[in-house]
């Protein structure tokens, strides 16, 4: 058996990331949809190069919180946000912030794979083109290849780059969407139930991809499957009725959580 270096062991073993630097800070975040309040003074930090999982029953506010991190809620009429969210200590709700640029830095992958009705190549190239990241065709080819490599899709897609992205299987489409998110070199990737439409093998591939992406990106994932949260994350945050109940190392969260409500939820005893 190969002796691994201690550092490699630590990384491989998902050593808790509670001392990683903070990438995003959410302070007293509240969200209102018209009169209805969806989030209550949530204080939750996102650590760099860490997978943070948001869990909780339906309607608990976990997706709402995720969407505040790249201002996705801006598009919803009557949605109002109070509190403060920073990315590298800069307020993302400051009037001077360019939302398009913010979303290039904080990318998103959705529940249902939603490739553009274009070729695989164009799906990846679209983002870098509008952000002016490639000067030449060769630059763009490189970005497309490296993005597909990073998403673990290159070997499956390299001979069919000009075929429509919608012709891929569901799992491949989702990895294409992850490649598309990665193509603009974001710093943070938000994932909203990225595996809920996938079979177990495709899910395992996406989870392995998430594990690899953590080296270069910071990831926040919303999932209904607490088993998935347990598998892929280093930090877990549990939401309930719009409140953040507990945030902890995933190891601790799934062996001995501090809050009784977390315990009841993960053990399937929610009353």
């Amino acid at each position, binding site marked *: 058996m190969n*002796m691994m270096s201690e550092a490699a*062991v630590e990384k491989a*073993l998902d050593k808790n990331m509670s001392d990683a630097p903070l990438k995003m800070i959410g302070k007293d975040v509240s969200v209102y949809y018209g009169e209805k309040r969806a989030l209550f003074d949530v204080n939750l930090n996102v650590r760099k190069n860490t997978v943070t999982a948001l869990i909780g029953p339906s309607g608990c506010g976990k997706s709402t919180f995720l969407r505040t991190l790249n201002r996705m809620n801006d598009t919803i009429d009557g949605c109002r946000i109070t509190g403060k969210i920073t990315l590298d200590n800069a307020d993302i709700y400051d009037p001077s912030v360019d939302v398009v640029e913010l979303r290039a830095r904080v990318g998103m992958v959705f529940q249902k794979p939603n490739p553009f009705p274009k070729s695989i190549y164009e799906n990846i190239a679209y983002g870098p083109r509008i952000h002016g990241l490639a000067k030449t065709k060769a630059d763009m080819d490189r970005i497309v290849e490296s993005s597909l490599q990073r998403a673990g899709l290159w070997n499956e897609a390299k001979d069919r780059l000009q075929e429509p992205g919608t012709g891929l299987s569901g799992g491949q489409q989702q990895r294409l969407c992850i490649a598309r998110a990665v193509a603009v070199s974001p710093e943070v990737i938000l994932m909203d139930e990225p595996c809920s439409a996938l079979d177990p*093998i495709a899910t*395992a591939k996406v989870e392995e991809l998430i594990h690899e992406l953590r080296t270069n990106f910071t990831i926040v994932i919303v999932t209904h499957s607490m088993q998935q949260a*347990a*598998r892929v994350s280093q930090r877990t945050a549990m939401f309930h009725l719009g409140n953040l109940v507990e945030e902890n190392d995933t*190891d601790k969260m799934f062996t001995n959580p501090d809050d009784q409500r977390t315990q009841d939820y993960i053990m399937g005893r929610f009353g």
Partner: protein
Amino acid sequence: MSSTHIYTPFDEELKYLARRISEMGGIAEQMVADSVRALVNSDFALAQKVISEDAILDDAEKQINEKAIVTIARRQPVASDLREIMGAIRIAADLERVGDLGKNNAKRVIAVANATLPRQLSRGLEHLAELALMQLKEVLDVYASRSVEKANSIRERDSEIDAIYTSLFRELLTYMMEDPRNITPCTHLLFCAKNIERIGDHATNIAETIFYMATGAQPEGERPKDDSANTVGALAD
């Protein structure tokens, strides 16, 4: 464990458990060998080394258990993955006990040191320890190779150790009857012999655990045993 998991951190965790078990095995083996050498040569410094090394095994067992619990909670293992983790917990407990028994032998070195016992007796003890250590070494090799046949053959050989233990028991009794001043050192040596015999039992436990890990079934039949030591000295009809 022939194929790998799509989700690679799980493989790393299983490898970590296997690596820690092998480390524990190596330390336990060394402790037992050293404790017998210390006993035979009245080497107090070596005995002290064995005594202090026990803490390493205690810590390793705790760490293996903690990692196993977290791995079960986070990876939801099934089938051979689940047996692999349960096996690691059980083998770690056996190895920790082996360390305790080695330490117990080491603690008796001072009590035995002043006695002048025949060379033949320590030869017998050494031979018993050689057999137990061979069982332990082979079972650790089997842990690495997962060979079901070898696991079975280790299990079958435990009765050899039992037989030698019984003959040592008889021998010690004769020395005690010969001269009451021998009773104290001989009683200590009797415990040492019993400790070594139990190390063989732990090796057999580990062989059974490995059999279960590899096949999902418990080994069949009673464990071969020669426990006539239990009746040594009983009055014949």
